[in-house]
């Protein structure tokens, strides 16, 4: 932390000078500066994960509305993980006087002890009555010796979510646009969480990398770059580069399809296909920082596993039917689908994009 003191000292001087310049003639009562309201969030690291989500006081009012308490800041990665069309709200909270530091464009921010990352999964237009239903809220809490999971399942009344470690299923039907969809939604066990949130033996976050957050988000008080907002909140040291290599929103059809595909694969696949991860023995390297190399995307690479059906390349330029990537992203069989966890349905829009991308690729030479 010590190299951030200069910034702190400068800030202090600014504040002192403001105070010094205030009108000395005013009555003493008018000099009263209200104590800045403090975040109501309750986090005793020796007691977490709490039994109930409400114990953290992360939200104001009716908890199902997910209105963040003071100090609980919403954020959104530029491209997002697909989990059977679930909608998500994400928040970050840190204790007072603690902030994250930059560690690389494509690396998880270096978070301080006491950080809480919050991700709530919900669906709109849930049948039979087209209602919104909140299913689960996942917490990642950074203790002094590393991250822990807190998995909370919402009750049917939508008033509370309780800690669950073993996993559970929820049958769900909803309208996705004009299409009725259904799934047996999986609430993951802690062990399943670790399959993706894994680096060696350590639990890690996935999405909170500068490459994913370097974008404008509309906050309650206006639109702002997310990283800048984190700095404003005191959640990020401002000492980060201005030229961050940033992913794109894969949904933006106006952008280069190669960048869109790489951005999609980064957030959906790279957590298992990079060094030290669950599936690092396969040749793909899907992290955005690595996927500029065609071989890391599996282009013209023979797969290790014989899937039959003429699937002789991970990505066969021009021929999606012969590409393992296309096959797996279109599969719903647990043993062949990819991503392995977090989806039971085909992500149709992404599958279409990947099909188009492979079709347009030309040979390997």
């Amino acid at each position, binding site marked *: 932390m010590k190299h951030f003191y200069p910034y702190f000292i400068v800030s202090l001087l600014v504040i002192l000078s403001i105070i010094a310049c205030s009108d000395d003639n005013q009555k003493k009562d008018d000099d009263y500066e209200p104590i800045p309201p403090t975040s109501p969030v309750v986090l005793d690291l020796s007691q977490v994960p709490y039994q109930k989500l409400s114990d953290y006081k992360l939200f104001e009012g009716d908890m199902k509305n997910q209105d963040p308490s003071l100090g609980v800041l919403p954020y959104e990665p530029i491209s997002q993980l697909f989990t059977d069309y679930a909608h998500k709200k994400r928040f970050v909270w840190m204790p007072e006087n603690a902030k994250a530091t930059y560690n690389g464009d494509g690396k998880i921010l270096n978070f301080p002890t006491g950080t809480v990352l919050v991700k709530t999964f919900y669906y709109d237009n849930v049948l039979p009555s087209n209602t919104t239903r909140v299913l689960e809220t996942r917490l990642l809490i950074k203790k002094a010796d590393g991250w822990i999971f807190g998995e909370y399942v919402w009750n049917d009344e939508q008033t509370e979510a309780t800690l669950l470690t073993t*996993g559970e299923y929820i049958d769900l039907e909803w309208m996705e646009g004009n299409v009725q969809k259904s799934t047996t939604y999986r609430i993951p066990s802690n062990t399943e969480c*670790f399959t993706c949130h894994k680096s060696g*033996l350590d639990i890690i976050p996935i999405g909170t990398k500068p490459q994913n957050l370097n974008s404008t988000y509309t906050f309650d008080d206006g639109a702002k770059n997310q990283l800048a907002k984190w700095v404003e909140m005191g959640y990020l040291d401002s000492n980060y580069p201005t030229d961050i290599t940033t992913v794109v929103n894969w949904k933006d059809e106006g952008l280069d399809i190669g960048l869109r595909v790489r951005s999609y694969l980064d957030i959906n696949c790279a957590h298992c296909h990079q060094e*030290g991860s669950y599936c690092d*023995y396969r*040749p793909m390297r899907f992290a955005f920082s690595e996927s500029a190399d065609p071989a890391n995307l599996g282009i013209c690479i023979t797969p290790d596993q014989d899937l039959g059906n*003429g699937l002789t390349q991970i990505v066969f330029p021009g*021929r999606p039917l012969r590409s393992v990537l296309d096959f797996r992203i279109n599969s719903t069989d647990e*043993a062949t689908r990819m991503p392995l966890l977090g989806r039971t349905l085909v992500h149709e829009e992404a599958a279409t994009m990947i099909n188009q991308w492979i079709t347009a690729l030309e040979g390997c030479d």
Partner: protein
Amino acid sequence: MKEKLLLFLVFLTNLVVYGQNTCDTALPVQAGITVIDAINGSQAPSPFCVTGGTVATAGEWYVYSPIGNHTVTVTTDLNINIGDDPRVHIYKGDCTNLVCVAGDDDSGTLGNPDALCVVTFDALAGNDYFIAFDNKWDASGITFKLIENEYIPQPVAIVSFTQQTVGLTGSYRDCVVDMNGDYLDDIVSVSNGQVQMLLQTETGSFQSVTRPTPTTNFLPSWSIAAGDINKDGYNDLVYGNGQGVAFMRQNSTQTGFELMTSPEYVFSQRTNFIDIDNDGNLDAFVCHDVAPNVRYINDGTGNLIFAQGGMGDYPSGGNYGSIFVDYDNDGDMDLFIAKCGSGPIDELHQNNGDGTFTDVSIAAGMAEPSQSWSSAWADYDNDGDMDAMIGASSNTSGGHKLRLNNGDGTFTDVTAGSGLDVFLSTNIENVAHDFDNDGFVDLFMGGNTIMINNGNMTFTPNPVNTSVGSIGDLNNDGFLDVQYNNNIFLNTGNDNNWLKVHLEGVDSNRNGIGARIELYGTWGKQIREVRSGDGFRHMSSLNTHFGIGTAETITKLVVKWPSGIVDEILNPNINESILVVESSTLGVASTKNNAFILYPNPASEVLNIQNNSFEIEAAMIYDITGRKVVSTKNNVQSLDVHALSAGTYVVILRDTDGKTHTQKFIKK
């Protein structure tokens, strides 16, 4: 306009004259170059003479009628075709009965990826050979060259299979095992709410029956295994799912299945049935990918009790391929776990004989990173102990590993020069069976290849037309067949002889899983073990298969049961299946059973049972080779033996507690 009309007429003429759109209108071709403008003929080639994608919608047909005998090559591996992706099928016969001669998808070497097809086949004068291209991958035009080489007959594959489609309706089609108690291998497919069984009949056909099951979230997406957990003579199933484990217990009336699940999260990989605590009741073991492996202990009263720990506790992940094998020849089944992931080391766990295991990986020399999803264990050199092939699923930690059992609890690396060192296809499925019945166990591995055991710890690749699937004898001809997805691949066979052994455990588990079977003859000794769950995903037959090459006799068959009981059968017939019932070949004295008396003995018409100590649930008579000759149920007081031929027989009485009681008698 005139030009266009002319072009149109030319086009029409082409269609009429060169109407190679169907087999019936196949265009005659000779040696030389032929140009196809597009693959759009109405008849798609069928049957498929190549493995891989099996749906095509269009074809182009040519017929080649050699004047003399030639070895013919049809190649598209020409510079003009680079970037195209044709597929070719070669047939003989006629258009109403096309028989595959050869086929190819990607054997060419030009282009990257190389996707052009080349096929070579023997063409004999006086026959028609149909050359058909399909549009599976590419409907654009292609140029092919037909080359007439000097006639040098193509080498005949040591093992080959004939493909047949079967009507499997379930989503999960990974299980070949007897389901109705007749020891003929059936095919099982599973969907949520039902189990479909293709029951093999005595006449070599299949009868499809579908039985309801309760629904479950734990479908067998990762693996399936079978065994008789309640000793009723009908196999039950375990489903290995990514989030848990389900058991489907077949009811004794064979009308349905009862579901048993345990709520624990399990990322199942290989599932096995095995009597872990050797109490005579079959337990289950499940590899857990991301946590310590789990087991389900059968308490003998219908409960399977979850337990975790002590059989591979996860450092650090990737428990993929469990297989139970008695590597130290001490009569109990040890556990090898092929592992894969970010750094894990394979594990060998020695059975302590009391239901606990000790990790001996390092002492045995088996603690290696292999990136393997399955290992294949057999006595590859027929020296009386089980050797190992750990199949690489990725070459990042070296390739396949062949390990010779030294007979002292350690293994020696014999990969170099074995043929496995230069066999580079990787796969998650690796199984050991004798596919050519020559008395040496072969390896079925990746790249649609059976590695034929040359008998000296070296192996030769033998390409086949299927990936590794479920293995069993699907036409009861003594040669092992393969079921993969909706197809069965029937072994073409050869003149070698064989024996199949069917077990009925009594004190041991019903299937005799864990039994060591020895077969003696001019070859010396061959050994097998009864295993439920080998390879990675599939369930293969519980019947034990031996090839014996050209030998005409078998000296002795020995079954060493998990209970410790040993049955011996002298001079069993070759080319038959033999049923061995546990204890059935024992002398009366050795059973030390005075619980009942048979009289008169010898008997000629009726054998009476004097019994005051237990209630008889079933009575069976076996001949001295272990064949069941009489079977009757309920409170039996006498047995009709008049039809039996003279000789020595064994009577087994099963009481209502499931215990068995044995006596010999002589038929006059």
